[in-house]
């Protein structure tokens, strides 16, 4: 768009896009759980969590910790987790990152990846523990391939999220 100020409708449209793209993209990532993929080993990364994490690390000022609650509820329903799993783990992740933000004064690509890796590891272990509580006797080793793939997949997801963020803020 070459105009400096668009029509009222254009401005409303851009405002809508700016506000809803982060939440809608996370909800869309949760919908990926409905994809018709049948695997017998847990190796596929939890894309919804990676998208949420990327948004949180990219735009810390945009997210209130309690926003993760309804997003987590939606993810629980889509991914057949016991209700409350993603709600609790996602909100806890946001609270921990709020604390980290208040302590760490300096961040770059590598520290972001490091923080994300720690968050992914804790999240995977948390999901394993919830499954354990629900009666699953699968050992913790079973989730290691998924954990490694998730850590490798994080920069790719972050790349997509940065692209979405550019498009969101473009005028």
């Amino acid at each position, binding site marked *: 768009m070459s105009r400096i100020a668009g029509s009222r409708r254009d401005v409303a449209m851009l405002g809508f896009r700016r506000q809803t793209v982060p939440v809608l993209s996370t909800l869309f990532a949760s*919908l990926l*759980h*409905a*994809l*018709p*993929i*049948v*695997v*017998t*080993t*847990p190796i*596929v990364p*939890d*894309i*919804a969590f990676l998208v949420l994490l990327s948004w949180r690390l990219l735009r*810390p*000022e945009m997210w*209130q*910790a*309690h926003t*993760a*609650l309804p997003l*987590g509820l939606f993810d629980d*329903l*889509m*991914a*057949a*987790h*016991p*209700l*409350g*799993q993603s*709600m*609790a783990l996602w*909100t*806890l992740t*946001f*609270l921990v990152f*709020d604390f980290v*933000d*208040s302590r*760490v*004064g*300096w*961040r770059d690509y590598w520290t972001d990846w490091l923080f994300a890796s720690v968050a992914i590891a804790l999240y995977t272990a948390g*999901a*394993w523990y*919830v*499954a*354990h*509580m*629900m*009666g*699953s*006797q*699968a*050992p913790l080793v*079973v*989730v290691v391939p*998924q954990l490694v793939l998730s850590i490798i997949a994080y920069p790719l997801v972050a790349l997509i999220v940065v692209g979405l963020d550019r498009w969101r803020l473009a005028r």
Partner: protein
Amino acid sequence: MAPPSTRRPGFSRRAQYGLFFGYVIAVAGVLFAVLLLLIAVIDPTGFAALKGASLDVTKPVTAGGRGVVNFFGGLGGSVSDYFQAGSQNAALRKQLAAERQRLIQARVIEGENQHLRALLKLDQDNPGTVAVTRIVGSSFASVRRLATLSAGSIAGVRVGEPVRAAEGLIGRVIESGHFASRVLLVSDGASSVPVRLVRDGTPAIAVGHGDGTIDLKTLEMGKNPFRRGDVLVTSGIGGVFPPGVPVAVVAAVQKDRTVAKPLADPARIDFAMVLPIYQPLADKPLSPQTQTALEAAQQ
């Protein structure tokens, strides 16, 4: 890059309170979610309506795309088959000759079996199937091994019913919506199926390992009765799974652990059959008469 400092609301009391209440809501939300989890642990079938509805909503995507995935999955298989055609042909010929002999033996045994059953006046318990359907999806990003069936309560699928394919046992229904239902696969860590060894009838429990394999636990301690290649079928103990359904084949025998692979691979099978619970009474609570009789016997 230093993080933006816009999270500090400055000196405005109103903004400070707003931030504070945001955290209060978040912490309360986490506690509420943990409470929901505890409810799920105590009663795993809770919120069935909500979960069933979400299953129904996502079913069109899952069921529609399955054909595409199957096509591409089959493509890879066809290409590798083409390159291995010669050696595969020879191996299959050898296998066919062996199988033919076994088939004749099996026919003889079947005839004998029918004869003996008639003598014992055992009726053939073959109650048929509840529904024949397809596996359309799975919980691929989770520790749990769950699969989605494209038939729900309208087709008669109820929670608790066993599911099998022609190759063998798949699992047990744990959630059901109107048009779709969810199956706990035999390879899930929370699944345990009473089985017996086909070779000599040794009873065992097949517990899922969570990564697509099954652990076999014998009921007696001591020496490991399993050998590589042994086939296990359901024993019918417990009254949920009908007896005689193939479950797994032993893949590796280690010192303290026996690893088996399920015979029915949910990623490859075409059709899944939902069966009625073998002995419906086994799943029900005891009748009041039995309860009082048991209590009287204990005193």
